[in-house]
């Protein structure tokens, strides 16, 4: 029996093998086409030797050269990178601190602190954007400071929405920490600081890296909040692209966007790998 049915059963689709059904495969495929066509078209046409962006006229790097020669674009890119770097470092430090406090201690008002930490994650970006605009105009953040101090307002805003995300990831990592390790270190004579330096922080490291990379991509990605905190002198890469897109669709934007896509995707893949390794 088995011998005769064996060949047929291999083709037959089991009742639960939804992934093998043609209709499901088709929907999955169409979804991927929908998700990837715009991005892949954008990348492909950044190498296309034609301004009209439709017909393939041969490979060229001239739009990358043009983007490199565009001083304001390079300035915006440098600004974005600087902001992302500072924001990441501060976010990881603040995120790690609050993760440790929430993981280790019981204290009055803990639920309120947790709720407040979730706020920057859930409220609409536009609300946070206008809040930052109102805040910095009330505080009177000086606008004519030398680079990179003029990026202060944007950096502060970025830290405010990044560090709760970093804290979330670091806390998830800490949740699996075996506190007996900490007790052992203390029994062996380590003081509080030595315990953190030699035991807890090394354990947290994958979480710190993953949280940092997330903070970095969040900062590089942000448009709405930056749009409200940026002045005419302090343009970041997404804000610059926004003003270029308003005028026209040009291959230079494609080239610049491709560079940013490659950077973010590379960082994300690294972050995902780190986080997978962070899981026990």
């Amino acid at each position, binding site marked *: 029996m088995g011998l005769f049915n064996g060949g047929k059963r291999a083709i037959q689709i089991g*009742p639960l093998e939804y992934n093998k059904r043609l209709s*499901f495969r088709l929907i999955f495929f169409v979804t991927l086409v929908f998700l990837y066509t715009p*991005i892949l078209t954008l990348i492909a046409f950044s190498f296309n030797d034609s301004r009209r962006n439709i017909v393939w006229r041969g490979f060229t790097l001239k739009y990358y050269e043009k983007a490199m020669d565009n001083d304001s674009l390079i300035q915006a890119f440098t600004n974005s990178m600087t902001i992302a770097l500072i924001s990441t470092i501060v976010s990881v430090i603040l995120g790690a601190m609050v993760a440790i406090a929430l993981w280790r201690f019981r204290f009055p008002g803990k639920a309120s602190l947790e709720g407040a930490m979730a706020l920057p994650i859930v409220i609409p970006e536009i609300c946070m954007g206008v809040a930052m605009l109102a805040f910095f105009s009330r505080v009177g953040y000086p606008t004519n400071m030398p680079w990179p101090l003029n990026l202060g307002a944007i950096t502060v805003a970025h830290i405010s929405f990044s560090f709760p995300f970093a804290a979330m990831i670091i806390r998830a990592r800490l949740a699996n920490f075996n506190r007996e390790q900490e007790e052992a270190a203390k029994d062996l004579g380590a003081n509080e600081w030595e315990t953190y330096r030699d035991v807890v922080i090394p354990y947290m490291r994958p979480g710190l890296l993953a949280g940092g990379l997330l903070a970095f991509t969040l900062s590089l*990605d942000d448009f709405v909040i930056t749009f409200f905190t940026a002045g005419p002198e302090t343009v970041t890469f*997404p804000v610059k692209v926004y003003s270029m897109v308003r005028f026209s669709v040009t291959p230079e934007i494609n080239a610049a966007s491709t560079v940013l896509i490659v950077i973010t995707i590379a960082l994300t893949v690294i972050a995902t790998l780190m986080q997978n390794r962070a899981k026990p």
Partner: protein
Amino acid sequence: MESWRRNPFVFWVTSLPPTLWLLFFFLVPLGIIWVISFGEKRGVIDIEITWVLDNYWRAFDPLYLEIFWKSLWMAFATTAICLIVAFPVAFSITFAPPRIKPLLLLLIILPFWTNLLIRTYALIAVLRTKGMVNFGLEWLWDQGNWLLTLVGLGDLQLLGAAFDPLQLLYNNTAVVVGLVYVHLPFMVLPLYAALDRMDRSFIEASLDLGAGHFRTFLTIVVPLAKAGIISGIIITFIPALGSFLTPDLLGGTDSQIIANVIERQFKNANDWPFGAALSFILMYITFIALTLRAFLARGSSAMEAG
């Protein structure tokens, strides 16, 4: 977990800086907006805080009610389309061989990590009158005409005298397409998480007992995956409702939603008190949605337990 009193020094060192940061650079800014929302505009930049509710009442003006209605409607449409598309996608991933599951998930998540502005821009490049979609359609039109000419019907101009590119951008449909494009991963991930946790023997039992796939889906899968469905709906709906960039770049003059009106009050129209009131209304809607989620999730977990 230990009481903070056992080690106050470590407690203060770790909890004080983040709390102060959150207080000064997040809660205080929100508080300023909240206070401004009760103010009145006096002159170009002067705002007097008079603790009036006029700005909130103004939001109930038919003009703005219509914009709220449009925002809700667009967010609903986006959420509904995402839900319909995401279910088969999540099913495909759940029942795929374990080896390729992470890859399929990564394929869905990866676009989501690309800059939102760049994705929107990419969509413009594909949908504009001289973009890829219209270019493809024109090619089909040319081939059709060529075929008609071949069979001797070329003079009749059955397909029209010239190719008329579709207006795919700068209207409400473009905004919904853009919102679906941006938010689809938000729906797929919670659905997948819920389906993957589900005990498959329930589906098998239902199928064995003679229910069809559709009936099994409605009576077994949907109730079991309820928590994931609710999460997916809420985390798609909230950002879609508050989205600014997509309607701004893909929408026409009549597809401006609430976030665009807020932006206008703070930039061109320069009416901060009204913009602040609209921001808080948007935030309250967000909180209502989140409370609803917590409430529904509690109901469903109680049902699972019972």
